[in-house]
């Protein structure tokens, strides 16, 4: 299948290859030369779409279909196993493929058989398939006709055979590769992608994709960097491949940030390793089996006694973890800053153990800390982004730096992140948002968003005359804290519960909301109830402005509030604080028919949002993916 190429490609390192491969020159030439088709069949293809050359079917990362992920996995497994010599590996993996279907072995391959052999691959790897078809279409006449014809002519037996073979492979592969390894590969790819983007543009000629389908664009993007910079992968993705067994174990320790808790075997495994012994809530809500539902308040004393036994845990991290657990630190920014500051402590006290490199050991350490924090409370998106940043910085520390220099660099990097992405960003948001407040406005806010609070205080300092409606909801009643702070400053406030939102929406002129995260389909993921407020505001034709720092943006997409969420303490619902007369449910908490659902977040559809105010300016929700893309580029460049 690596047959389509320009004769020129002999000197060009960007070649289509099978399996895991490096950009090493001899390898690619070896592959090319025995191919008779290379020069015969389709020179126009490669000239028209040069991107096709650098495409690698292997490197398509997202395993959407079962069949399509067999190949990347295969590559991953092999990579993990024999990462020492990647170049030799690319051959070994190729040897595994069923002969007629995959390997374009010299001499034996005629035109027809080549295409035939190509088709099954296309069927199992949609991205590549589309690419190849598109490439073929864009090429000159013979290629097109040939492809279509051979699709029709393809003997069914062959394809079935291939598929079944792949299935077998994948099965054995899945057994072989652990989850951590698979994840390691993905991370490596991500790192490589990022790294390539950093210096990518110059080297690679701008891709003229023309008719090539969107999936292939993706493939090209991921593949390109890897083909050029495999060395970066090894150095940059420290997690990954070459780490010793101890590191691998630690990787396994880390529960996946979005682990599905309805998978019992995994939960049992994760539990065995967990530091924090959580007891599961008794009456779990069926719809939310996939989320962790623990009893709250039981783990704290246990953890406190463990304090002196937990050698590997840094005290700063431990403290932050306990604060998360007890709810002392809440709110995306506060949690993120606390975590980063703990990491700064970690870096400060860090010394590289003998026979280890700083990059890898520290990443492993951070990962284990993160897994501890996840056990205390699931990560917020902002924290996830910050962790990604920290790991990225560690990975990209030049090896030439001495330990103290590296530590200083890391600490200042983290400091910069806190300053730029959170503190300065908030100031910029305030500057933007204040321009939207006019005299006589009645502003509504929900919960206790820090950014909005800053906006309101600033507007008050500017002597704007406005009134604030603080809408609150059970069980946290965070609005009361905000209410108190605003009143202390002399701002005129009205307080109510979320149920009364329709009653007070008549007088509101603008709604200001905070966000835990903004997802790339424009969905605002925020404190539960935000969606209700935005919906009612929308129904009353009141503009909804969301204040959110750009570091909280995420490329994930989400349509509902169920697939990914966090569950709070169910007992907080059955008991009403400060209202002893409400005790209807006191004796019923153990009844199997009764469940309490304490959702923490919900997803607000983007059509309710008029504007998102970020540190990059005021944008409509449709522009979020643009910012996500731009931000991540910058994220790497910083």
């Amino acid at each position, binding site marked *: 299948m690596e047959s389509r190429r320009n004769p020129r490609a002999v000197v060009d390192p960007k070649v289509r290859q099978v399996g895991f491969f490096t950009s090493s020159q001899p390898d690619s030439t070896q592959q090319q030369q025995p191919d008779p088709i290379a020069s015969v069949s389709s020179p126009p293809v490669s000239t028209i779409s040069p991107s096709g050359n650098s495409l690698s079917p292997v490197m398509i990362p997202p395993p959407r279909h079962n069949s399509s992920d067999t190949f990347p996995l295969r590559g991953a497994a092999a990579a993990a196993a024999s990462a020492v010599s990647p170049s030799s590996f690319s051959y070994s993996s190729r040897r595994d493929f069923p002969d007629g279907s995959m390997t374009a072995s010299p001499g034996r391959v005629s035109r027809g058989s080549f295409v035939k052999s190509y088709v099954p691959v296309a069927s199992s790897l949609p991205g590549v398939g589309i690419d190849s078809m598109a490439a073929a279409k864009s090429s000159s006449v013979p290629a097109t006709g040939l492809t279509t014809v051979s699709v029709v002519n393809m003997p069914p037996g062959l394809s079935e055979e291939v598929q079944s073979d792949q299935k077998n492979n994948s099965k054995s592969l899945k057994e072989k590769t652990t989850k951590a390894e698979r994840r390691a590969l993905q991370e490596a790819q991500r790192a490589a992608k990022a790294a390539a983007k950093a210096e990518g543009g110059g080297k690679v000629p701008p891709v003229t994709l023309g008719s090539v389908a969107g999936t292939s664009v993706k493939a090209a993007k991921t593949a390109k960097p890897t083909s050029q910079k495999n060395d970066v992968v090894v150095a940059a993705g420290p997690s990954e491949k070459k780490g010793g067994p101890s590191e691998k174990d630690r990787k396994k320790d880390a529960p996946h940030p979005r682990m599905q808790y309805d998978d019992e075997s995994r939960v049992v495994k994760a539990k065995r390793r967990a530091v924090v012994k959580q007891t599961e809530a008794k009456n779990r*809500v*069926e*719809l939310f089996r996939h989320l962790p539902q623990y009893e709250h308040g039981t783990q704290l004393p246990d953890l406190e006694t463990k304090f002196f036994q937990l050698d590997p845990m840094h005290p700063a991290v431990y403290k932050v973890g306990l604060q998360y657990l007890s709810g002392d630190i809440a709110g995306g920014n506060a949690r993120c800053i606390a975590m980063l500051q703990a990491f700064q402590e970690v870096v400060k006290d860090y010394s590289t153990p003998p026979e280890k490199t700083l990059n890898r050991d520290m990443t492993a350490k951070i990962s284990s800390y993160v897994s501890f924090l996840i056990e205390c409370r699931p990560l917020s998106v902002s924290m996830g982004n910050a962790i990604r940043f920290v790991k990225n910085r560690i990975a990209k520390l030049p090896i030439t730096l001495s330990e103290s220099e590296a530590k200083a660099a890391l600490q200042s990097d983290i400091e910069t992140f806190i300053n730029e992405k959170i503190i300065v960003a908030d100031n910029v948001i305030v500057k933007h948002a204040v321009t939207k407040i006019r005299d006589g406005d009645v502003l509504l806010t929900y919960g206790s968003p820090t950014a909005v609070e800053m906006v309101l205080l600033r507007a008050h300092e500017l002597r704007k005359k406005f009134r604030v409606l603080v809408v*609150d*909801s*059970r*069980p946290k009643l965070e609005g*009361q804290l905000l*209410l*108190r702070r605003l*009143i*202390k400053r*002399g*701002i*005129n*406030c*009205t*307080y*109510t*519960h*979320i*149920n*009364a*939102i*329709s*009653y*007070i929406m*008549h007088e509101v002129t603008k709604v200001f909301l905070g966000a835990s995260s903004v997802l790339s389909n424009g969905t605002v993921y925020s*404190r*539960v*109830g935000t*969606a*209700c407020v935005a*919906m*009612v505001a929308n*129904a009353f034709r009141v503009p909804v402005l969301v204040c959110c720092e750009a570091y909280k943006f995420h490329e994930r997409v989400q349509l*509902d*509030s*169920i697939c990914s*969420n966090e569950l709070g303490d169910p007992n907080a*619902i*059955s008991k*009403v604080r*400060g*209202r002893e007369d*409400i005790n*209807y*449910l006191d004796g*019923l908490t153990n*009844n199997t*028919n*009764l*469940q*309490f*659902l*304490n*959702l923490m977040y*919900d*997803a607000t*559809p983007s059509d309710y949002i008029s504007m998102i105010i970020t540190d990059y300016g005021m944008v409509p929700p449709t522009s979020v993916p643009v910012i996500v893309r731009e931000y991540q580029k910058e994220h790497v460049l910083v």
Partner: protein
Amino acid sequence: MPDVQSMVVEFVNKLRKRKIEGSQATAKYTVELLRSVISQHRVPHANQAAALIDAVKAVGEQLVAANPVELAVGNVVRRVLHIIREEDLSLTTAAMAGLDLLDASDDDDEDNCKGIGYPAMSAAVVAAARSTLRPPSLQTLLEGTPESATVPYTSSSGADSESKTADKSSITRKLKHDVIEGVNQLIHEIAGCHEQIAEQAIEHIHQNEVILTLGSSRTVLEFLCAAKEKKRSFRVFVAEGAPRYQGHLLAKELVARGLQTTVITDSAVFAMISRVNMVIIGAHAVMANGGVIGPVGVNMAALAAQKHAVPFVVLAGSHKLCPLYPHNPEVLLNELRSPSELLDFGEFSDCLDFGAGSGSPLLQVVNPTFDYVPPNLVSLFITDTGGHNPSYMYRLIADYYSADDLVM
């Protein structure tokens, strides 16, 4: 009638202090009070209907003024008035039909007609009376009798029928009897509306359904339990309904009856509505345009349901049908409760005091009781007479109330 008067005063006080909660309880008390008013009212021989109506109206006005937000009181008063008018009309038409048959050419008949204000012939009177009792038909439309035929009739002075005294006295006794009979029927209807509505549950709830409800309504409770008794297994989400937490009460009852119940916070309504098959709520009152007044937070749930195309079903007994068209009901037909339900005064006393000196306090607390759902958000009304569209409500109301009572 001192005892009736004292009962009225007592009830008015209860209403004023909001001691009676729930429209069904209020309706029941009201109708029982009105029954004793009617039974103890000494009816004059002449024009007894008008006298009865006046008496009921006088009491009704007091009751409505005591709690104008509790629309069930007004509804029941109007229902009773309607019963009186209907019974009177049917008696008169029956009597007149008899007269017509007996002595059709008698001039006394003409006299009688003049006396009660009809310029037309007695046949027209009968037709008019029929037209108010029976559903409109093509025949009545063709005859062109004015619909308001009963208006002058009921308010007419009783200067007639000197010659028919004996006949009339029998009618008098019969009228009061019939009215009390009718009122008893109304009491029965109000008491039995839960069962009537619950009977329809099985037609609306299917297996494995997920139902969201809000607030605490006995109608909803009975409705869900009726479906449960028919061996349907389904799941109920109950929004807790802060700050009154009536959802907790409902959840407790549901759990006691063995239903799978999940209590959610009010803020999670939007998050959960995408997994809900149907929203069922009990109304506080149903307006003539099909709008619903319900527990606070209902409008939010209705909007969310509309967004996700989830049917929004309102259960309402017929005593909740209000013949008025609402204007700005969120404010005008609402009631603000104590702020202490939202904020602990001890906690915020300094903030509240802060504004006391300057005249306007910095902190205000809003705690409304009701919420209005416009008719376009309601999918279906289930009343004791069956399911209806919001757009049909005005017609149902025409069945229960007579037009002259709308403004009391």
